[in-house]
């Protein structure tokens, strides 16, 4: 069998694919963060908690109401998004005029409170959530066994990422949004309700986190800590991609998933550090991130 640095090529293909799967979660989560930061200038540290809430929402729907995975994909983002809208209306909007740091502190505090409440109620071992029957099982690709569910995650994540990018960069609605962040007064003068637009944008970003949460539920345990563990990595992804750059967040998400996957083969001990090493190197060369523009 052919080998690359002592690792069979076949095994390497498997690892690349796994990297892409993890990358699709990074991409979905960092996309939400990038949308919120790009359009609201808020560093949303509650993102991990909102992702966790999405997963819990799916669990509740299934176990308390008998509503399955596919409906959860639609309901959880709306429900958690509505919660996001509430937070934005009641708290975050008072901070737009202040330094980034205040938004960061508020959202970080909220994240701790939400996680703490869930942990108190559900413990840290988490709750089981089965893969939906339609996507159970998998396909033997020759070089690896690919669970159908993971294949679905890649496809779904790509579609959502591309659709979001398209809406924001290529449609009229997207142009209002971008204009609204550049010069809110002027856009308002044209009769656009900017505060409402911003609220809904935050709700949308939060909804994306919840969607990722629902998709993660069958793979990882539905666990109060699931978001806290992931959010730091996702922030690194956003920073590497360039704060606020939608395309940057998507591409870096997938790219770093693959880099992390390869590290797990060649030097597994470093697999949770490698992303930060990449971050340090990128920031030294391009301080605004790979796709960011210096303001």
């Amino acid at each position, binding site marked *: 069998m052919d080998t690359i640095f002592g690792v*069979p090529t076949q095994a390497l293909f498997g690892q690349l694919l796994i990297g892409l799967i993890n990358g699709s979660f990074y991409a979905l989560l960092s996309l939400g963060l990038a949308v919120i930061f790009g359009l609201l200038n808020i560093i949303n540290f509650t993102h991990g908690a909102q992702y966790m809430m999405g997963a819990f929402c799916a669990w509740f729907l299934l176990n308390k109401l008998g509503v399955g995975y596919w409906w959860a994909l639609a309901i959880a983002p709306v429900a958690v998004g509505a919660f996001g809208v509430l937070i934005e209306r009641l708290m975050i909007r008072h901070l737009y005029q202040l330094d980034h740091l205040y938004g960061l502190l508020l959202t970080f505090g909220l994240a701790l409170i939400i996680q703490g409440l869930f*942990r108190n109620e559900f*413990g840290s*071992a988490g709750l089981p959530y089965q893969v939906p029957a339609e996507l159970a099982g998998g396909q033997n690709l020759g070089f690896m066994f690919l669970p159908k*569910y993971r294949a679905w995650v890649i496809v779904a994540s790509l579609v959502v990422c591309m659709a979001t990018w398209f809406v924001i960069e290529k449609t009229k609605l997207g142009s209002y949004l971008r204009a609204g962040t550049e010069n809110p007064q002027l856009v308002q003068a044209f009769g656009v309700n900017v505060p409402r637009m911003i609220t809904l944008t935050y709700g949308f970003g939060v909804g994306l986190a919840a969607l990722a949460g629902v998709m993660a539920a069958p793979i990882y345990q539905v666990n109060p800590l*699931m978001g806290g*563990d992931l959010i730091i990595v996702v922030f690194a992804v956003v920073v590497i991609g360039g704060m606020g750059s939608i395309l940057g967040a998507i591409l870096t998400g997938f790219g770093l998933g693959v880099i992390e996957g390869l590290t797990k083969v060649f030097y*597994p001990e470093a697999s949770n550090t490698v992303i930060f090493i990449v971050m340090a190197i990128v920031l030294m060369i391009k301080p605004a991130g790979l796709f960011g523009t210096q303001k």
Partner: protein
Amino acid sequence: MGLKKTLLAAAVAAAVGGTAHAQISDGVIKIGVLNDMSGLYADIAGPGSVVAARMAVEDFGAAKKGMKVEIVSADHQNKPDVGSAVVRQWYDVDKVDAVFDVPTSSVALAVSEITRQKGKAFLVSGAATADLTGKACSPNTIHWTYDTWMLANGTGNAIVKTGGDTWFFITADYAFGHALERDTEAVVLKSGGKVLGKVRHPFPGTDFSSFLLQAQASKAKIIGLANAGGDTINSIKQAAEFGIVKGGQHLAGLLVFITDIHGLGLETAQGLIFTETFYWDLNDQTRAFTKRFAAANGGKYPSMVQAGVYSSVLHYLKAIEAAKTDDGTKVIAKMKELPTDDPLFGKGRVRQDGRKIHPAYLVEVKKPSESKGPYDYYKILATIPAEQAFRPEKEGGCPLVK
């Protein structure tokens, strides 16, 4: 998360009246429960351990005996530096006499060293590394509930005997994982098995599919999971997803707790074989304890770690009563002298190397159809007698053993 945690001071005062023993420092016996209150081990130990300690104080009847016992607790976040800082503060400023529980081997090793320097008492329930009673043993430390040697011996032996003779390890990359992997590997090799490979994952981890794929490629019959808590749960869950068990390979959870099985659900966990030293459904006494415990712990049943905290607090207080002092070194010596006896672990003793011994149970997780409901999870396959369950005293390399 790295924010400073407030020390949750849960004071359980016993007697108000009654004269304090002259030899008890400050007239109060102060117990510190240190563990993971919020992370991936919080269900195994966490606030439940504090509940267990409180129950032990009540059952000992401290109030009636005129002893004043206070319990404080803190979160070490599974970080040795955080744990060390808390324990130094407890010993130096807060006048804590003994530290209990401390899961996460790296933290426990650090606390053991500090306890020895300060001449206090350390009763480990949560941590696993057998080094605590081996090369790192201390006259101020007793290792209570289980250890890596016992797990390896119980589970490893049973699996190799039934034909699982080629192994691949997925190991948590810190002191505990290394010790568990080392001890299990020794058992496998000794019984004529082979280790085909190993991979060390960062702690804590989230996605194990990459490591599972490597294990799958190794074609080993047994994939040994040398990790714990949330890491084990996710490994088992994702192994099912990648069709590893269907493909003919078997998982050996080297350290599995009842809370993990509760989290996984029987559908995924059925058929797992592992070793525990406590199960709530052993006899009338364990069932009675569990009923009280669950009522005080939000309906959650006790893990063996929490049961160990109860048992060790009880024996610690008995030793203080007998020794009439709370001096750490003297109390530990007294604990080794007195035979142990409690409703949860039965009769046992503490050896010179600080190892507390009691029987261990090889268990198999029931099928969903065999279970009567939540927490009815185990079939007991074998009981390993106390004297055989743990590493022989002479083999550990502990300098205290002459």
